[in-house]
């Protein structure tokens, strides 16, 4: 094994990443630019609102780099950009991870092949520099794995194929030649029967799994598909199951984001999610540390009280919390318009969580006592020990807590609805996305329910979660499995 070649290939791969990132930035920038250009219906001069019934009959033309594009061409370009992003972004993410962790022993012909396929993908997504570098890298890896230089490699292809066919022939002949006695024949038959049964069982298993996977995945597919349809298509008696890329109406998303104010709601939700998560992380780390490491009287008692409250249904809290944050309590909601502190009311009650304290304490307890002693001898104060040693060691758990907390803020429905539902006209501006999804009106004056827009809003809410999930799949799935197992 030539370590130099391996290191060289790694280095080239990391240079390729720069171009991959540049390409992705270019896609995003282009996408944003084109998305911004998309034309919406004019505002109605009397009501000041937009007549969305006209959305699908709009036929604007766009001027781009000196050529005129119609609506369909524009849709196609944006769709292609999105497809590029969907392909290249995960690829980059996975590649960076692999490049970091791959050891010299893991490089085999499969890796070489996948590198070549990636080069082809780069070529198709107009990332020519990346493609060139990857092909160069492929040859280095061929040299590393097989010992061929590029020229030798091309020369070796045809003989290798010939040899493969020849080998097959020889094998077949060998089997035919072999004389078989009675016993081994019956043995062979039974093995064959066993293999057939096994294969059938496997087939059944996979069929079952595929069927279940379809049931899971179809709502997502239908959501994305519908969100790109026009209104007429979305309420058609015979819905289409596929759309050509020129029929993908990206303008739906633009309407949802701007005209239906989902941009604002997403901003609200992100604000609440960030602050409540930050608060949760800080309070849980300190509390878990106190429960795991500091000796004090009544620690077990206090902790078991906390655990017991986990059993109490959330509805019980909400009633009194509503009183607490309203006029006769802290006065965050239910005040005259303009004096309400909706964000405070949505964040503060959720900046700590008993179940996360419990989860983190279990994790802290597993850190051996001797680390603490070692740190003490090294002159490390308690606080510094917590920050420099315990938190980094428990970081996977803390990360899982972060993700779960962000998810739960993203899904919060009942509490924001209650506090924004007390009759303040201003409250609409503080909706979180779940409220907005349920309570925004997608009904036009003409009485039509704009299903395509409603579903586009749903997709807009779902897709960020899915992206986060795919990025941190392992952490999230392991975290859930573990937290469930521990009870």
């Amino acid at each position: 094994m030539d370590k130099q070649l391996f290191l060289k290939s790694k280095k080239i791969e990391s240079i390729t990443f720069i171009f991959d990132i540049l390409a992705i930035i270019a896609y995003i920038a282009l996408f944003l630019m084109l998305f911004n250009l998309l034309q919406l219906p004019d505002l109605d001069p009397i009501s000041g609102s937009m007549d969305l019934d006209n959305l699908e009959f709009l036929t604007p033309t766009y001027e781009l780099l000196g050529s005129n594009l119609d609506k369909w061409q524009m849709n196609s370009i944006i769709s292609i950009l999105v497809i590029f992003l969907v392909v290249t972004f995960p690829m980059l993410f996975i590649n960076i991870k692999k490049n970091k962790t791959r050891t010299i022993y893991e490089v085999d012909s499969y890796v070489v092949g996948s590198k070549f396929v990636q080069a082809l993908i780069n070529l198709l997504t107009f990332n020519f520099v990346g493609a060139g570098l990857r092909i160069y890298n492929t040859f280095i890896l061929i040299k590393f794995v097989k010992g061929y230089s590029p020229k030798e490699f091309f020369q070796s292809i045809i003989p290798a194929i010939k040899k493969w066919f020849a080998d097959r022939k020889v094998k077949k002949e060998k089997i035919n030649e072999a004389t078989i006695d009675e016993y081994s024949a019956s043995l062979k038959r039974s093995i064959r029967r066993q293999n057939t049964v096994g294969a059938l069982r496997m087939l059944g298993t996979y069929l079952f799994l595929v069927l279940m996977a379809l049931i899971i995945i179809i709502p997502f597919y239908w959501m994305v598909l519908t969100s790109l349809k026009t209104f007429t298509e979305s309420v058609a008696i015979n819905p289409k199951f596929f759309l050509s890329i020129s029929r993908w109406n990206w303008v739906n998303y633009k309407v949802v984001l701007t005209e239906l104010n989902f941009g604002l709601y997403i901003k609200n939700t992100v604000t609440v999610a960030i602050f409540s998560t930050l608060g949760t992380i800080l309070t849980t780390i300190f509390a878990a540390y106190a429960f795991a490491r500091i000796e004090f009287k009544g620690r077990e008692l206090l902790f078991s009280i906390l655990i017991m409250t986990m059993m109490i249904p959330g509805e019980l809290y909400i009633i009194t919390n509503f009183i607490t944050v309203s006029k006769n309590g802290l006065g965050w909601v239910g005040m005259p318009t303009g004096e309400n502190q909706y964000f405070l009311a949505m964040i503060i009650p959720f900046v700590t969580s008993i179940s996360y304290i419990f989860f983190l304490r279990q994790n802290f307890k597993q850190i051996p006592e001797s680390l603490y002693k070692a740190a003490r001898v090294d002159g490390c104060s308690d606080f510094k020990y917590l920050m420099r040693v315990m938190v980094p060691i428990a970081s996977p758990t803390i990360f899982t807590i972060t993700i779960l907390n962000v998810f739960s803020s993203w899904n919060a429905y009942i509490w924001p609805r209650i506090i924004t539902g007390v009759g303040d006209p201003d409250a609409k501006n503080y909706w979180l996305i779940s409220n907005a999804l349920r309570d925004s009106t997608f009904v036009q004056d003409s009485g039509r329910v704009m299903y395509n827009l409603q579903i586009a809003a749903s997709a807009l809410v779902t897709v960020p979660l899915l992206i986060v999930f795919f990025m941190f799949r392992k952490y999230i799935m392991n975290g859930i499995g573990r937290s469930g197992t521990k009870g």
Partner: protein
Amino acid sequence: MRNLIKNVKGFLIKIGNIIKTFFWNVRRIINNFKRKISNFLDKHKINPAGKFPGWAKALLYLSPALIILAVFTFWPIINSFALVVYENYNMTNNTITGYTIFGNFLRVLTDESFIVPASHTASSAVINTLIIVFISVPISIFIALGVSVALNAIKPLKGFFQTIYFLPYVTNTIAIGLVFAYMFRTDGGLVNQFIGLFGVDTAGLSWVESNAVYWRSMFVLIFYSIWSALAFKIMVFLTSIQGIDKQYYQAAAIDATPKGRIFSKITVPLISPMIFYITVTSVIGAFKIYNAIVALFGVQGAPPGVNYNLQSIVMYIYQFIDGSKEGQLSVAAAGSLILFAIILVLTIVQMQVSKKRVHY
């Protein structure tokens, strides 16, 4: 070229070093300062740690969490016991007209549409909740078990399937609920289209829209709740099945045990504590079903123009929480205490049974 890269690299490292040295020196100064203070304290025989007992330190670390918990967790528990004895509690004026011990509980229990269906409706909150609990929980556990055993049996594509099955867990209940409602539309809904393939006449076959029959809308609700609950169960079951010692299976394979028997005699008994735990938690979860109903049927909890309601117990409670009428919060508190009692019983049963161990 190579030299240039080297120079740039060296330059960056140098800058990094300067910054790091700066922070190191800051830390040194702070350490020195600390040392001086402690030397001074030592000299004058002052021992702050001695006057600073463990609980004070603990309090310092615990206080952020405890303050929040006190206001938003402990106080509500105490206060809800106060609320249920108030008569006609008015939230805006903070006034009551008197006290009652069982009045609010009686109001909940005798309310039409809580236990007994009212004359104008065909269902009640408790009936709805029980139907959801007794149908969706067993079915979802059964499917989840099947899927996780099948997942455990395969090797290629395992991670792929696992990821797909996990998707419902990371979605917004309201958003996907809206998609489900859209899929179950009468005209042009995906489900009716699908049924139409088998020659069923789908004209006017409505699920979540007006004129939907009770059982049909209930079916959609149960289907959706199973769909969204599967992810967590599959994940947990798979983790515990993978935790089973491989030796049991190897021993079974040598004894030529059929697959069905392996499943019923090894897998299920060994993960039975987990199955039981999941059963109880999902029963509790099913009691609290709310977002799914709201997503599918709106805040009214029923398709438009029908004479029944799909309210669950939690939904019944929430309809009282806007404080607009006198005494409503007390009723809500009474309702939630009843719910708490149900959950408490279930939890105690779970604890008792798992103490005896469901194993083997």
